[in-house]
């Protein structure tokens, strides 16, 4: 395991005028670690995710990423070209609504192959083979490779989005409620898939979710947010089994047992 953190977040705050999005968030993320950011609506978790993934620029604070060349880069100071390149190669972003993260009018194979073509792959046969390989890994039948995601179910679309993001072997993947809106059985399948892939590929991931079961299953560490602030963080099973803060205790006790 690497001794240097992959992502260093230092006192990040985001304000919308006087309204607090998130405030004073600091943590370090190491390669292979999965961090769940948990909270209810309005907790600031989505704002934080956007600040971390450079979709929003923080009002204050620094987010630094450990580039492949060994240098740390302040993401807010990165040029647009570099930032977009990073987003296409070293990072992934899985949207809650898969339609936001896919090209709906283009075949599944092209969706998976796009990133490869974007970094210069010019062999049709190889691109198609890699795309097939990934479709298999996310349990989409390869006979669907030429079908458009418009014809896919929600669970299939989500799995396709994951394949599309992972094809360039990113080191860090952001996920925004990856199982939101899916049927329970579909969720279980997806979670298991994500769990396996994260483990097999040694990915670091930051997953925003309001579902504690998702956090329990997928993450090593957990951060609980309320009203824009991180009120508790630590080892996931510790936070869930021995919650210290009042709000965390409330959250944990609110889960319905089946």
């Amino acid at each position, binding site marked *: 395991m690497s001794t240097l953190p992959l992502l260093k977040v230092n006192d990040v705050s985001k304000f919308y005028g006087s309204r607090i999005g998130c405030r004073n968030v600091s943590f370090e993320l190491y390669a292979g670690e999965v961090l769940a950011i948990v909270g209810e609506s309005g907790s600031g978790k989505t704002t934080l995710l956007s600040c971390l993934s450079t979709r929003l620029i923080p009002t204050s604070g620094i987010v630094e990423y450990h580039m492949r060349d060994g240098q740390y880069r302040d993401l807010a100071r990165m040029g647009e070209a570099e930032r977009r390149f990073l987003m296409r190669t070293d990072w992934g972003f899985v949207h809650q609504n898969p339609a936001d993260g896919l090209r709906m009018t283009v075949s599944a194979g092209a969706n998976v*192959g796009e990133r490869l*073509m*974007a970094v210069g792959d010019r062999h049709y046969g190889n691109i198609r083979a890699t795309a097939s390989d990934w479709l298999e890994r996310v349990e989409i039948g390869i006979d669907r490779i030429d079908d458009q995601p418009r014809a896919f179910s929600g669970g299939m679309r989500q799995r396709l989005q994951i394949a599309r993001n992972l094809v360039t072997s990113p080191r860090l993947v952001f996920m925004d409620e990856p199982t939101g809106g899916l049927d329970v059985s579909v969720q279980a399948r997806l979670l298991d898939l994500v769990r396996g892939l994260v483990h097999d590929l040694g990915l670091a991931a930051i997953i925003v979710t309001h579902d504690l079961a998702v956090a329990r299953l997928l993450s090593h560490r957990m951060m609980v947010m309320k009203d824009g602030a991180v009120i508790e963080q630590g080892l996931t099973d510790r936070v869930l089994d021995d919650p210290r803060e009042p709000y965390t205790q409330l959250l944990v006790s609110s889960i319905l047992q089946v």
Partner: protein
Amino acid sequence: MNDLATYNFAYLDEQTKRMIRRAILKAIAIPGYQVPFASREMPMPYGWGTGGVQVTASILGPQDVLKVIDQGADDTTNAVSIRAFFQKVADVAVTTRTKDATIIQTRHRIPEEKLSEGQTLVYQVPIPEPLRFLEPRETETRKMHALEEYGLMHVKLYEDIARNGHIATTYAYPVKVEGRYVMDPSPTPKFDNPKMHMSEALQLFGAGREKRIYAVPPYTEVVSLDFDDHPFEIQSFDKPCALCGAEDVYLDEVILDDKGGRMFVCSDTDHCEDRRACGHAGHMLARKEAAE
């Protein structure tokens, strides 16, 4: 001569021509880059060549010789109208012979005759943005060009191969100019793409409705996009031109009767006439003469 008094030379006012020439210079300085310009109201509707007309009007001088073709032919309605327009507003010499023209305005074809230094080819362009069909946002496509993010272009070609087994794009086939910008060559058949590469002539592209001008200076690298295992190929025809016997030229299909009879003839009418004048004859011509 009376008519001339009511129009400025070549219809556009001098300020407009200046603005367009500046855009053209910018375009030449950045081969393949789409320069926005303030497209004017022209006496023909959008979709009828207003971009090409504005470019021609801006570069036309009293000594120029103008040729106008539409799908390779000098005698279609559009070509005739535009040619007449310039005769009226510029009183400039016109020709149908490619060799004799200094400015050639074209819709959807490049002349078969190799162009030489000093000649300018002005293309009429409907949609200048090669990425438009896959990415509808102008903000995004501008970024893609600026950051040289052309993966999406290959996605389009990939889709073609996936659906049709081969790259099915047969016209408006995207090209990379001088190793930097991806450009739409206008709806010319891909057959004509190789002619754009290292041409001795200046190539200018005008899109009136979309308000863009772009250019390929002489001796510029123009490479058609493809995959390593699906290289770019031009169309080939089984038979030569029925009238002049030319091979290796782009042919148009002409329906002869209502029994399915048809013949393939040169799309470039001037080229065909030239060859016939030199004595070449295709099988239809021979038959016609035999019948006479």
